[in-house]
């Protein structure tokens, strides 16, 4: 056994001694081949790994909000029914709404970024910019917090602010959804609306990109 091992060692040394230059080249070629093989494998893994990102499938339920959509209750007993501006309590709290496509009556609740906040304020309190896109004191905003994507569901009655329940971001609905306090990086975009047949209708897309700021 021991003799056998010694012999192998001897053979290896013999190679080195005979042709050092040729062996160096051979080693370089082998190392390059291994390197190229590994790099190729890793690259192909990336291609396969990209398949782990699912494709977005557009269904009628998660199409983006569009001009002409009717705002309906997103939850509660009247879920799916159009919101009448007279049902909104003056001075808040906000009502959470989804847009409904008037052509096929599909409620687009499949994408959280379609969530809309509705609140009725005194028309005189609105800033001129905000008032332009409001209707009879009703203002509409994207409901998705710009910070980490929660739905801005709480209401601070004393200051009349939207409050995000996740990290206490405060937004001012009378001033274009401006951030009053807390960590959100941007205002929530306003949704221009009009009132038609006692229903609230979007007249355009949100004034900015809705959803968490990426």
């Amino acid at each position, binding site marked *: 056994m021991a003799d056998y091992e010694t012999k192998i060692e001897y053979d290896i040394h013999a190679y080195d001694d005979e042709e050092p230059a040729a062996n160096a080249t051979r080693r370089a070629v082998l190392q390059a081949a291994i390197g190229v093989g590994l790099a190729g494998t890793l690259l192909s893994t990336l291609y396969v790994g990209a398949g782990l*990102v699912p494709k*977005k499938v557009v269904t009628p339920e998660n199409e983006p909000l569009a001009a002409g959509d009717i705002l309906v209750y997103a939850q509660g007993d009247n879920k799916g029914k159009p919101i009448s501006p007279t049902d909104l309590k003056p001075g808040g709290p906000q009502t959470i709404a989804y847009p409904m496509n008037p052509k096929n009556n599909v409620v687009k609740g499949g994408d959280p970024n379609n969530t809309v906040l509705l609140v009725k304020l005194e028309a005189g309190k609105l800033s001129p910019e905000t008032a332009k896109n409001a209707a009879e004191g009703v203002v509409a905003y994207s409901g998705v917090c710009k910070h980490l*994507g929660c739905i801005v569901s709480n209401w601070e009655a004393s200051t009349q602010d939207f409050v*995000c*329940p*996740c990290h206490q971001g405060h937004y001012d609905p009378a001033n274009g959804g401006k951030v009053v306090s807390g*960590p*959100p*990086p941007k205002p929530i975009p306003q949704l221009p609306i009009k009132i038609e047949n006692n229903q609230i209708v979007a007249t355009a897309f949100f004034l900015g990109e809705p959803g968490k700021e990426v």
Partner: protein
Amino acid sequence: MYQWLDERLDLTRLNNKLFRKVFPVHHTFFLGEITLFAFIVLVLTGVFLTLTYEPSTRLVKVEGYPDPVQAAYASILYIDSLPFGAVIRSVHHWSAHIMIAAAFLHLLRILLSGAYKKPRELNWIIGILMLVTSIVIAFLGYALPYDNYAITATRIGHGIAESVPWVGVAVAQIMFGGDFPGSEHNIPRLYSLHVLWLPLALMGLIGAHLLLMVKQKHTQPKYAEKVAPGKILGVPALPQQGMMSGVLFLVYVAVVFLIAGGFLAHPVEAYGPLSANTPNVKPDWYFLWIYGLLKIIPSSFEFTIPLFGGGKFGPEFWGGVVIPSILLVGAMLIPFFSFTEGNVKQRYLELPSRHPRRTSLTIAGLMFLIMSTMAGYIGDTGMEWLTIGRAWLLIILVPIVTYFVSFWIMRAIWGHTWRDEPQVEFISGPKGSAADD
């Protein structure tokens, strides 16, 4: 029977080599074992849960709900209706909490007693990786009941993952199976990661951890040096240590079932299925400090590097990724900043009182975590005094003050012993009697 097996498997040799292995005894050595027991209970209860849980968001009709609910949520209702189903689900929940708590205390024990030093640096790093893996597994399991509370917590995690510059969106898409909530791939993706792939990775790490522990031997209390210098003092793995561990395991199971029977975890019916609004949520205690940091880091902490399509370094990235990563990488590097004189191997436990800097730094670190956790309560009723500015002040000042106060107290009490050789006192019996045995 024994002889038949022994002739084929050489059980006697195995017994002599492995099962007679000496285990040093100290009550804090059981923290790691409790972590392992919690993991075993998690696997066993998890098996029960997987047999009934349906990882899907297809809509099904459930009695008592006006609208169809997601199958995942419905299957949790079904599990809760099974005999002891709700208890087993609660055991799974509380065991996860206990596992993370025990792992953290185990880590503190290693840190305070200097057991991370050469030659155990690798096992220290593996230990931190296991803690991180456990927390990630716990987080990925959070969404599975698919109630409104769980969805909100997971949504925040998705947002934090997305905040990583350049790669964040792709990472979040792969980890959560698309946008969360809203993709039908969410639950299958989170489910397979939670029940299969990450637990397998954790098992691999546990195996490596135990193998290294056996190979490198346990650190032991200092008295062992006086009693049997150069030897390991303790009890054999079998039967003594095995008996103690077995009893402890049974006690653990009993206690966790008692807790679960009394406090049913995560009442999904109270939270309700996915709805349009977001409820008031707080994450589990081990995430509260990150949650607190997210609340106080202002949106102005942001800049963009206009390279490769723009990498945004926003407040969520600082609070949710950078600060935790700094702490973790810092913790991993601790063994490489220890200045033990000479090229010696750590064999005995160090007394925290004789290492005032390390001990004070550890306490200061804990104060940082506690103060950040407190910042998580900003905006709650009764916490009006805690403004964002005051939270910042507390988070920065309290750890620094704690360090110096702790150091000063330790110097006042133990300062005169720092330069002495450690003294060993025997709790019972005349001095030296243990050595005579």
